[in-house]
């Protein structure tokens, strides 16, 4: 048991429908109160959508599971109003080092440029993260229905019905939609008999959470074939509360039960530390990893998200991070469909975009796994050749793969995006997640991404004629939030719109913008369309397309 953390026990409350003998009705039922289910609940609460969230347990995640939250996930959590406590509690890092034998092979910096609110990564134990999400949900006036287990699912053309088991008996929840966020061993997936395709990798890894005073820098350290663990790899991460996570590769032949014993684990850690400093073992487990996914994530009225929809190996931190991007992508679409603002076919774009992301993550994760655990002797020969060359020859460092760390997917071919008509440079292509930048807003300093999302945003880079802004405001007012981006506070504003000052010029640079450039952003902060000097009708068409009302 961890000495640094005591898991909360959340109260079970008898569902009112049990006493009434009836069925609970809601717009959305969320199955699973892990990170992804909780993020979905918070997102729907912010959008005023009625929901019920259930979980079969009554506490947060046990043991050492997700630890690395990537910049994009932190930005999503910021939009949900809980990025700050997670970043304050967690450990920020951006440098990774790779060692081969006893020498540094190479190092990488995941966020070499300044001018972003969030760091490349924050490490935090999953239980801390879940507790922060439960607290945020409570602050919004909602609670998880703990010890409510989904044991049955049926659906008709216009609703889904869950059977929920509680300590006091069973009841039903009838919902317009169900979000299945019940993790890698998803019961919903099994109940629906959906095929879970992919591969299991023939290797075993020992996870140890160790409480100690360590002097390692706050970096990700990965060793290939180190003297203290010959022939295998080792990964070291620092987490909050002086807890260090160590992953030891054991090989396929290892006996999981034997390897978990303290008398086996402690000498391994002792050898790694190379000294006699005191430490306490907080958690030990042995895992094998898998890369699998569902063919489709939307099955009628039941929508899968997170590990329930796709599973990757841990190298690359693409599990929870891609799950947060799932609900970020899904919830605004679901809200629009439930409000009758967009047709149900808008949800097809969730399926396509997040399947695309899952394919990207699984490919990346599979390649990292093949490098870390070569499947054939020749594969191992090439792997070791890359590592040995990497110490002296910079080119080989490109090939070293200890996990390509999570980056958000750019949905290039999305049906919601408008193709570029004008020429732009840089990364802000339609489908890309918006880049952050330092700004001045409401008389103080702030960050661009804190000002975006939850609505469609139209950014107009000034100076522009006030009549143009008035025209946009009149035509789009109810549908988008219009923002004028100015380079200098002295630029005169005559129209009645929100103004953001691009104080360091980084927006102009990152968005390759000049006066008159217009960006349309989705509620999940992804670019939908951009123009150099559009006509009103083009902006309107772009908006209709981004809302899935275009019939394309």
């Amino acid at each position: 048991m961890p000495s640094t953390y005591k898991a909360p026990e959340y109260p079970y409350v008898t569902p009112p429908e049990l006493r009434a003998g009836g069925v609970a009705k809601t717009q959305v039922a969320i199955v699973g109160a892990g990170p992804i289910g909780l993020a979905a609940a918070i997102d729907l609460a912010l959008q005023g959508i009625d929901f019920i969230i259930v979980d079969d347990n009554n506490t947060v995640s046990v043991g050492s599971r997700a630890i690395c939250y990537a910049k994009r996930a932190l930005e999503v959590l910021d939009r949900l109003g809980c990025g700050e406590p997670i970043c304050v509690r967690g450990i920020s890092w951006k440098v990774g080092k790779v060692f081969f034998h006893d020498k540094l092979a190479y190092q990488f910096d995941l966020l070499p440029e300044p001018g972003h609110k969030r760091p490349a990564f924050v490490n935090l134990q999953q239980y801390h993260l879940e507790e922060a999400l439960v607290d945020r949900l409570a602050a919004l006036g909602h609670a998880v229905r703990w010890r409510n287990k989904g044991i049955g699912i049926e659906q008709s053309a216009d609703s889904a019905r869950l059977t929920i088991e509680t300590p006091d008996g069973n009841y039903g929840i009838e919902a317009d939609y169900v979000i299945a966020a019940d993790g890698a061993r998803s019961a919903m997936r099994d109940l629906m008999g959906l095929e879970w395709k992919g591969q299991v990798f023939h290797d075993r890894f020992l996870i140890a959470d160790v409480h100690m005073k360590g002097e390692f820098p706050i970096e990700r350290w990965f060793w290939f074939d180190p003297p203290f663990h010959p022939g295998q790899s080792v990964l070291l991460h620092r987490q909050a509360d002086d807890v260090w996570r160590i992953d030891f590769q054991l090989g396929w032949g290892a006996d999981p039960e034997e390897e978990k014993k303290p008398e086996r684990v402690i000498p391994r850690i002792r050898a790694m530390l190379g000294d006699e400093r005191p430490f306490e073992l907080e958690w030990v487990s042995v895992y094998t990893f898998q890369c699998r996914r569902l063919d489709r994530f939307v099955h009628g009225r039941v929508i899968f998200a997170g590990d329930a929809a796709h599973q990757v190996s841990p190298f690359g931190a693409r599990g929870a991070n891609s799950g947060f991007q799932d609900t970020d992508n899904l919830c605004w679409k679901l809200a629009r469909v439930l409000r009758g603002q967009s047709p149900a076919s808008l949800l097809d774009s969730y399926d396509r975009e997040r399947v695309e992301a899952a394919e990207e993550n699984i490919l990346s994760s599979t390649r990292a796994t093949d490098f870390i655990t070569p499947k054939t002797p020749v594969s191992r020969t090439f792997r070791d050749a890359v590592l040995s060359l990497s110490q002296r020859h910079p080119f080989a460092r490109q090939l070293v793969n200890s996990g390509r760390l999570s980056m958000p997917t750019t949905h290039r071919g999305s049906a919601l995006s408008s193709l570029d008509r004008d020429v732009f440079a840089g990364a802000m292509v339609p489908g890309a997640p918006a880049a952050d930048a330092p700004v001045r807003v409401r008389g103080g300093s702030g960050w661009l991404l804190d000002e975006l999302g939850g609505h469609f945003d139209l950014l107009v880079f000034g100076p522009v004629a006030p009549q143009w802004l008035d025209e946009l405001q009149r035509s789009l007012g109810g549908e988008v939030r219009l923002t004028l981006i100015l380079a200098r506070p002295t630029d005169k504003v005559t129209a009645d719109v929100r103004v953001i000052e691009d104080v360091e010029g980084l927006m102009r640079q990152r968005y390759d913008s000049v006066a008159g450039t217009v960006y349309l952003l989705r509620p999940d902060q992804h670019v939908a369309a951009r123009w150099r000097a559009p006509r009103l009708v083009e902006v309107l068409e772009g908006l209709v397309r981004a809302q899935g009302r275009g019939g394309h």
Partner: protein
Amino acid sequence: MSLNTDPNFDRPDDFYQALIDAHAGLTEAQSAALNARLILLLANQVGDFDTLRAAIAAAREALD
């Protein structure tokens, strides 16, 4: 860039001897390591993925 399989060595016999000599005194495992390192160095020199893919296909051709 496409794969050039026309004669391109300036000193073909010297190259061939240098290649064989490089393996002198090595165990089979060391020779395999040398070959792997050599392929990676040369592949980086080429750089272009389409050319590398064509070379991989040409190398594989006779073995299927």
